[in-house]
C-alpha cells in the first residue's frame, strides 16, 4: 500500500515538481545566458506567465472534463476562431450601432452563445449517433474551420475597441484580466468535478461506461452538457484573448487542440478516461507556458520549444505507465 500511495503522490505531484525544476533551471540558466538584467522569477514576469497561460488554460480546463469522460474534442481551435469572428464582427453590426460601448457585453454574449451552440452540435452527434468523439470532432474541426473561412475569406476580421483593450489589459490586485478569468474558470470547474454529482458521474462514465449506464446515469445528456461546457470555454478563451487584440486571422487557433491536449496529458489525465484533475491540468498549462517563456528568456531557438515539449510529453506518458504497472503488480502480490 505504501508503494501505491507513493506512486499516486508521484503522479499527482510530478507536474508541480517539474514546474519547480523549470523555475530553478531557467533562473539559474537565465543568469548566464539571458540578455536581460531582470531575473526570470521577477514578479512581473510571473504575472505575465499566468496571463499568457489563459488562452490555452481556459480551454484545457474544459478538455479535462471531456477527457475524464473518455472523450476528446479536436474542434476547440475552430470553435475558438469562429467565436472570435462573431465577437469582433458583431461589434460593427449596424443593428448595435446605437449601443456605443454597451455593444461589448452584447458581442461577448453572442460569442459565448456561438461556442455553446457549436459544442452542443458536437455533443448531440456523439450522443445520438454513438460515433466516437474523436471522429465526430475531427469532422467538426474541419467543418467549423470551413465556416470561419466562409465568413470572411482569407481576410482577417477586425474591430479595435480601445475601451475593450483597456479592460483586457487592466490589472486588478496585480493580476491581469485574463488571469482572473482563468482563475474563476479553474475554481468553478474544480468545484463541479469534485463536489457535485455531475463531476462524480463524469469519472464514473470515463471509468466504465457500461457500469455507469447500469447505475442509471444518463450518459448521452451528460456528454452533451460537457461538450457544451467546453464549447463555452473555448468561446470564453476567445473572448478573453480577442478583447485585447481586436483582430482574428481565419487560421487562428489552429493546433490549439493539440496544445490543450498536451497540457491536459502533462497534468496526468488519462487518455482512456476515468482519471484526471483540474488543478493538475492547470499545472500542465503552466509547465508549457514556462517552457516557451523560459527558452525564450535564455535565448534558445523557438523551434527547440516544440522539440522539448514533445520529449517531455513522451517522458511523462512513459513515467505514468511505469508507475501504473508497478501499482498493479503491488496489488497482485
Amino acid at each position, binding site marked *: 500500500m505504501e508503494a501505491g500511495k507513493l506512486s499516486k503522490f508521484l503522479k499527482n505531484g510530478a507536474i508541480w515538481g517539474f514546474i519547480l525544476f523549470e523555475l530553478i533551471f531557467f533562473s539559474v540558466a537565465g543568469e548566464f545566458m539571458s540578455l536581460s538584467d531582470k531575473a526570470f522569477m521577477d514578479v512581473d514576469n510571473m504575472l505575465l506567465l499566468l496571463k499568457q497561460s489563459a488562452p490555452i488554460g481556459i480551454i484545457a480546463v474544459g478538455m479535462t472534463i471531456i477527457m475524464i469522460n473518455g472523450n476528446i474534442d479536436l474542434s476547440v481551435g475552430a470553435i475558438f476562431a469562429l467565436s472570435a469572428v462573431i465577437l469582433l464582427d458583431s461589434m460593427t453590426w449596424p443593428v448595435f450601432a446605437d449601443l456605443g460601448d454597451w455593444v461589448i457585453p452584447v458581442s461577448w454574449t453572442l460569442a459565448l452563445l456561438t461556442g455553446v451552440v457549436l459544442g452542443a452540435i458536437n455533443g448531440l452527434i456523439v450522443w445520438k449517433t454513438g460515433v466516437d468523439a474523436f471522429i465526430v470532432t475531427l469532422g467538426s474541426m474541419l467543418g467549423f474551420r470551413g465556416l470561419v473561412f466562409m465568413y470572411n475569406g482569407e481576410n482577417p476580421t477586425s474591430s479595435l475597441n480601445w475601451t475593450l483593450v483597456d479592460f483586457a489589459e487592466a490589472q486588478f490586485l496585480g493580476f491581469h484580466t485574463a488571469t482572473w478569468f482563468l482563475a474563476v474558470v479553474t475554481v468553478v470547474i474544480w468545484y463541479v468535478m469534485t463536489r457535485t454529482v455531475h463531476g462524480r458521474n463524469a469519472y464514473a462514465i470515463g471509468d466504465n461506461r457500461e457500469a455507469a449506464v447500469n447505475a442509471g446515469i444518463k450518459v448521452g445528456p451528460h456528454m452533451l452538457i460537457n461538450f457544451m461546457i467546453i464549447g463555452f470555454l473555448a468561446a470564453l478563451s476567445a473572448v478573453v484573448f480577442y478583447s485585447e487584440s481586436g483582430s482574428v*486571422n481565419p487560421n487562428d487557433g489552429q493546433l490549439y487542440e493539440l496544445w490543450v491536449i498536451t497540457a491536459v496529458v502533462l497534468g496526468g489525465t488519462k487518455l482512456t478516461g476515468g482519471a484526471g484533475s483540474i488543478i493538475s491540468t492547470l499545472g500542465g498549462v503552466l509547465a508549457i507556458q514556462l517552457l516557451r517563456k523560459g527558452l525564450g528568456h535564455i535565448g534558445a531557438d523557438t523551434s527547440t520549444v516544440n522539440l522539448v515539449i514533445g520529449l517531455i510529453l513522451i517522458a511523462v506518458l512513459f513515467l505514468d505507465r511505469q508507475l501504473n504497472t508497478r501499482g498493479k503488480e503491488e496489488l497482485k502480490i
Partner: protein
Amino acid sequence: MTLRTVLTATAATAALTVAGAAHAEAHGPMRIGITQNNVGVDSYQTTYEKAFIAAAEANDKVEVVVLDAGGDVARQIAQMEDLIQQEVDAIIIWPTNGEAVIPAVRKAHSAGIPVVVTNSNIAEAGFDFVATFSGPDNVTQGSRSAEIMCDRFKALGIENEAQVVQISGQPGYTTAIERQQGFDDRLPEVCPNVTLVETQPGDWNREKSQQVMEAFLVKYDNIDGVYAGDDNMGVGALNAALAADRAEGITFVGATNFSVGYEAMERGEYWGSIYQSPVDDAEAALQSAIELVSGTELPFLNYFDTPKITQDNMSEFTKPVF
C-alpha cells in the same frame, strides 16, 4: 588588525571596481529583440532570419533576441510582452496580423521602447505607436515596373500603340493596392500613348492568374504587355499565353521577382521584374533599430531599395530564394 582591515577594504574596492567594469561591459551593447511572423513557412522568411542573425553577429555593438511567432498571433503578443518585460532597447516586429498586434505595440510604446515594424506594415490605427516602418515601397515597385514596361516598348518601337493588361494581387491587401497604384500612375507619365485596357485580380495565385489571362487572350486580339502584382501571377499569365501560342511578342513584367520569374527570364520568355532581397530587408530592419537606439531621427516610412531586374541585367542578381 589594522593591516587586515586595510586588506579587506582594498579587496572590497577591487571587487567593486571589477564588478563595475563587468556591469559596464554587460550594459555596453544595445539589446534588440525581434519577433518574426513565421520562419520556415517560406524561404523568404528563412533567409531573412539567417541574414538578420548574421548582420547582428557582425556588429559587436548589438545583441539580439530572435523570436519566431510561428504564425500564431497569441504567441507573438506574448513575445512582445516578454521583450518589454526584459527591457530591450528596441523591438522589431514582423506582424502576424496587422491589426491584432496594435495593442501590444502600444504597450511597448508606453514602456518607452521604440518599435520597428518590418516587411509589412501594421494598420493605420497603430501608426502613432510605431517609431518607423522598414520595408519595401510597394508604390515604387509598381511605378518601376511601369518604367521597365515602357522602356521595353520603346526598344521594340511600339510605345505609341501598345496595349497592356494588368493582373493585380488579392483585393483589399495594401500590397496589392499600392503596387497597382504605382503602376497605374506611372505608366501614363512615361508612356502616354500606351493604353491599359483592363485590370483583373489574380489573388496572388498562379492558377487563378492563368485563368484571368486566358480570358484576356480571348477578349483582346492585341496584347503587348502584361503587368502582374508579382512573378507568381506573371508566370501564370505567361503559361496561359504559351498554351495559346501567343507569348511571342508579349512583354511580361512583375512587381516582385520570384524564382519562377527568374527562371522564365533565363529562358527568355519573361521580360523583367523588381528585385526584393530578404537580406536587404533584414539588414534594413536591424539598421533602423540601431539608428533609433542611437538617437537618430528616422522617417516614419523607411524604405529599402528594390532595384529593377530585366533580362539585360539579371546576371548581376542571384536567383531569388522564394
